[in-house]
C-alpha cells in the first residue's frame, strides 16, 4: 500500500523500541466492549487505474456544461477559470500546508491571504475583510449574529428576495438563540418592499441581497438610510461578486457589513462546494468580526512580514465567548479568488462584468422579442425571471433531452410565482447557444 511506508522490519524494530509485542498490543487501553466485532467490510482496495475509471464513470452520470447548455445561476455560477489559476492552485506548498500558526514558514499563505483581504475589501468598498468563511449562506448567518452582538437587539429583518437556501441556513443558525427573524416582502418590480421597516423596533440588522435572487438590483442606499433610522446595522448580501465590476459596491451604498458568495471568482461550481464565504465590515466592528484575520507587521530585523492577528476573538483562545466557533475556513478557495482577481485586474474585471451583463441582457431582449414574459421590469445583472406558459414544464423536460437546461423553476420557494423560471447567462454561453435556446422556447 503506497501510502504506508513501513516494512515488516521497520514495524518489528519499532515495536521493540516501544516495548510492545505486537501492533494489537498498542491498543490494550481500549476495552473489549468498545471494539468492533468484525473487520472493516469495505470494497477491495482499488488500484489508481481502477479508481480513475470509477470516478470517470460517476462523473459521466452528471449533466455538466461540457455537453449541456445550462442557464442555471441561483447562487452557483459558471465562469471561465484561466489555466494559470488552476496551475498555481495545484502547488503543493499551498495545498498541503496547515493554517499559518507558525508564521515564519507560512509567509506564502499569509501574504496571499492579506492580499485576498485587501482585494475583497476593495471589491466591496469596505474597510476590512476577513480571511474567508464557509459559504455565502453561513457568512450571512455570521453577519447577523455579529450585528446582534454589536447592537444588542433581538430582531433581524431579512428580505424575502435573499436566496431561499441562505434564509434557511440563517433560520437554522438562529433557531436556538431565540432571536426573531422578520421577513420583508417584495414588490411588483422584483425588489424588496421596505415600508414595514418604518415601524420596527429592537432591530439589530436589516439584510438585503443585491443583485437579489430574482437578479434584480436593489435600492441599497434607501435601505441603508431607513436601517440607520431604526438604529440597526445594514447588511448587504450577494451571490454574484462579479456584479461589482460594474455596479456600485455595498460600501458606497452604506453597508455596515457586506457578505456573500465568492464562488464566481475562480472556483468551479463542483456541485455546490467548497464555496467561499466573503465577509467585510467597517473597521469599528473588527473586534467582533468572526473568522481569521491576517495582519502586516515586521520581524526583528525590520523586514515586512505577515501574521494571523486579533486571535483573541477566536475559539482557541476565547472558547465559549468567541465571536464564532470557526476554525478551518476556506483558505485555498480564498487563494483561488485572489489569483483570479489578480489575473483579471481592474480593467479585466470591468470588461468581464460588462460582457456578462451584455449576454444576459441579450438573452432577455431576444426572449421579449419572441413574445416571452419577463416577470420584473427593473434593471438586473446576469439573472432574471421569466414567466413561461402553464404547460412549459413538459417543454422543460423535452429541452433537457436536447441537452438544454432552461433555468431554475422557482415555484417551490415562491408558490405565488408558478411557471416562473430563473434564467442566468454568463460569459460562458455564446450568442449561438442563446439564439438556439430562444428559438426552442418560442411557441
Amino acid at each position, binding site marked *: 500500500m503506497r501510502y504506508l511506508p513501513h516494512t515488516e522490519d521497520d514495524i518489528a524494530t519499532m515495536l521493540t523500541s516501544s516495548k510492545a509485542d505486537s501492533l494489537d498490543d498498542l491498543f490494550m*487501553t481500549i476495552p473489549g466492549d468498545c471494539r468492533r466485532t468484525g473487520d472493516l467490510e*469495505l470494497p477491495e482496495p482499488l488500484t489508481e487505474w481502477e479508481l480513475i475509471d470509477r470516478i470517470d464513470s460517476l462523473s459521466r452520470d452528471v449533466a455538466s456544461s461540457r455537453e449541456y447548455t445550462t442557464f442555471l445561476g441561483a447562487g*452557483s455560477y459558471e465562469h471561465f477559470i484561466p489555466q494559470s489559476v488552476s496551475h498555481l492552485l495545484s502547488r503543493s506548498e499551498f495545498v*498541503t500546508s496547515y*493554517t499559518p500558526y507558525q508564521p515564519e514558514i507560512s509567509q*506564502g499563505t499569509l501574504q496571499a491571504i492579506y492580499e485576498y483581504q485587501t482585494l475583497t475589501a476593495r471589491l466591496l468598498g469596505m474597510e*476590512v475583510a476577513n480571511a474567508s468563511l464557509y459559504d455565502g449562506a453561513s457568512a450571512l448567518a455570521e453577519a447577523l449574529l455579529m450585528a446582534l452582538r454589536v447592537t444588542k437587539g433581538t430582531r433581524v429583518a431579512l428580505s424575502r428576495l435573499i436566496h431561499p437556501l441562505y434564509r434557511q441556513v440563517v433560520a437554522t443558525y438562529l*433557531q436556538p438563540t431565540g432571536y426573531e427573524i422578520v421577513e420583508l416582502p417584495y414588490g411588483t418590480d422584483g425588489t424588496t418592499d421596505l415600508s414595514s421597516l418604518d415601524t420596527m423596533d429592537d432591530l439589530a440588522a436589516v439584510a438585503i441581497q443585491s443583485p437579489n435572487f430574482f437578479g434584480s438590483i436593489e435600492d441599497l442606499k434607501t435601505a441603508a438610510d431607513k436601517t440607520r433610522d431604526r438604529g440597526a446595522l445594514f447588511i448587504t448580501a450577494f451571490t454574484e461578486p462579479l456584479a461589482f465590476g460594474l455596479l456600485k459596491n455595498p460600501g458606497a451604498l452604506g453597508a455596515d457589513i457586506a457578505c456573500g458568495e465568492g464562488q464566481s471568482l475562480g472556483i468551479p461550481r463542483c456541485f455546490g462546494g467548497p*464555496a467561499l464565504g466573503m465577509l467585510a465590515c467597517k473597521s469599528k466592528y473588527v473586534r467582533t468580526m468572526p473568522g481569521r484575520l491576517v495582519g*502586516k507587521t515586521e520581524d526583528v530585523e525590520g523586514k515586512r512580514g505577515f501574521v494571523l492577528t486579533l486571535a483573541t476573538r477566536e475559539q482557541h483562545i476565547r472558547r465559549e465567548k468567541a465571536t464564532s466557533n470557526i476554525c478551518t475556513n476556506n483558505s485555498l478557495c480564498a487563494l483561488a479568488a485572489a489569483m483570479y482577481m489578480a489575473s483579471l485586474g481592474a480593467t479585466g474585471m470591468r470588461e468581464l462584468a460588462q460582457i456578462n451583463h451584455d449576454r444576459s441582457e441579450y438573452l432577455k431582449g431576444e426572449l421579449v422579442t419572441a413574445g416571452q414574459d419577463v416577470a420584473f421590469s427593473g434593471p438586473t445583472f446576469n439573472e432574471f425571471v421569466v414567466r413561461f406558459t402553464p404547460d412549459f414544464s413538459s417543454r422543460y423536460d423535452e429541452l433537457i433531452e436536447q441537452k438544454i437546461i432552461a433555468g431554475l423553476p422557482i415555484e417551490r420557494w415562491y408558490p405565488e410565482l408558478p411557471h416562473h423560471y430563473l434564467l442566468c447567462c454568463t460569459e460562458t454561453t455564446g450568442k449561438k447557444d442563446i439564439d438556439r435556446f430562444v428559438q426552442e422556447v418560442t411557441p
Partner: protein
Amino acid sequence: MTESPGTTGLIMNEPLLWERGKRGRHGMSLPRRDVPSAPLRDDLVGDGPDFPDLSEVDVIRHYTRLAQWNFGVDSGMYPLGSCTMKYNPKINETLSGTPGFAAAHPLLPDHLSQGALGLIHELEGFLAHITGLDAVTLQPAAGAHGELTGMLIMHAYHRSKGSPRSRIIVPDTAHGTNPASAALCGYSPVPVKSNDQGILSVDAIAEIMDDDTAGIMVTNPNTLGLFEEHIRDIARVVHAKGGLVYCDGANMNAVMGIADMGAMGVDIMHLNLHKTFSTPHGGGGPGSGPVCVAKHLEPFLPLPRITEQDGHYALLWDAPQSIGKVQAFHGNFAVMIRAYCYILSMGRYLRKASQLAVLNAAYIKEELKDTFHLPYDRPCMHECVFTDKFQEQYKITTLHMAKRLMDYGFHPPTIYFPLVVHGAIMIEPTETESKEDIDAFIAALKAVAQEARDNPDLLRRAPHNCKVKKLDETRAARHPCLQG
C-alpha cells in the same frame, strides 16, 4: 548521522500584488464579444474595484514565489498533534477536478445528478460503517461546523422531547471549538476535570450530570492522545438522565477498524475529512466535517437527505424534524471526492493506517521520554504530549524549541494545547511518515534539547533559516493593519 533536512537556499523576495503591475496589463484571456453592448442606468454604475492590472507572467511569478515560502506536508514532516497531517494523495487531487463534476450545478434535477448523489450516498455509507453509527450528513464544511450541526441536532432532540436543557459537560482537555459550538446553541459549558491518568472518571461525570444537562462533548481518543477508557460507563450515566453523548472525532485516525463508536454509547459524532481521510488542509481549508448519528437521531439531520431505491438516488426535502441547513448546498463536494477516493484506495488498509499511526507515536514517545518531560507515562494513541519542564532550568520554553525546530527542516508540533498541560508539545506523526523520517525528527528534537543546554540564546532568537525572523505579533495586534 545524516544531515537534518533543514538548510538554507536562495529564496526570492516578492512584493504585494498592488506593488507590481501597470495599468492596462492583462492577466487573463477574455471571451469574445458577440452580442451588442447593453447599457446600465447611470446611477447604478460604480467605478469598479481598485485592483492592480497584472500580466499572466506577473501573476505566475508572484504566486510561484509565495508558494516557495511555505512548508507543506510535501516539503517535510508536519507532526501537528490533533491535526493528522498525513500525506495527501495526488490522484485524489486530480480526480476531484474531473470536468464532469467540476461543472455540475448543485440544483440540477435529481435525475441529472445521479453520479454526484451516488458518490455522496456511498461515502455516507462508508463513514457510517467505519464509525459504527447509523446515518450521516456530509453537509458541514469543517469540523467546527460539524460540531455546530451536532449541537443543533442535540438541541432539536431535547426540544422534541419537551425537555429543553441549558447546560453541556465539556472536559478540560476539550478543543476550543467544543465550548464555542455549544455556546452558539445557547448551552452553558460545565467544565469537568480529567483525572490523574489524563482521562475522565465516571464519578466526576455522575456528580454533575442532571436533568438540565443536554449531554457531554467528549473527544476520544482525547487531546492528550489517550483513550477514554471509561466511555461506556460515562455514556450510561449521561443517557440515564436523558442526555446525549457527542464525540469530537478529530482523533479518529487512531482507531479506524478497531474501535466502534456506536458500541461506546456515542449518539452523535463529527469527523474531519481533512484529517483522518487525507484531504489536504489547503493552508486553512476547505475541509469537510461530516456528522454521524445513531438511528434515533436520523430525523434531525440537515436537508436534503439522499435516498436510494433500486440504484436510483433522490433528494428528500420533506423531513419535518430536520434542523434545516448549515450550508446553502450539499457540502464540500470536491473534498468528498478526495475522501471517497482515499477510502476506495485503502479499503481494509484503513485499519493498518491506524495501527501504524499509533506505532509511530508510541515509538516517538519511548525515544524522547528521557529528553522531554512526559506528563502521562501511559500507552498513547496516535499522538503523545510532552512539556518543557526539563528545559525550564535553562529558561527555555516550548515556544523557543518550536521555533528552532524549523531550522532543522520540520514543522513544529502543536504547542500550548491541551491547556491542562503547561507548555504542552503535542506530537502526531501520522502513519505516512517512514521510520527514517521519524528518526530524523527525533534526532532534530534531541539536538534542539542539547542546544537548550549549550546555547540557549540561539533558541531564543530562532528561527534563523526561514524567510523572515521572529515576527512582532504584539505590534500586529496593537495596531492592526489588515489590508493594503
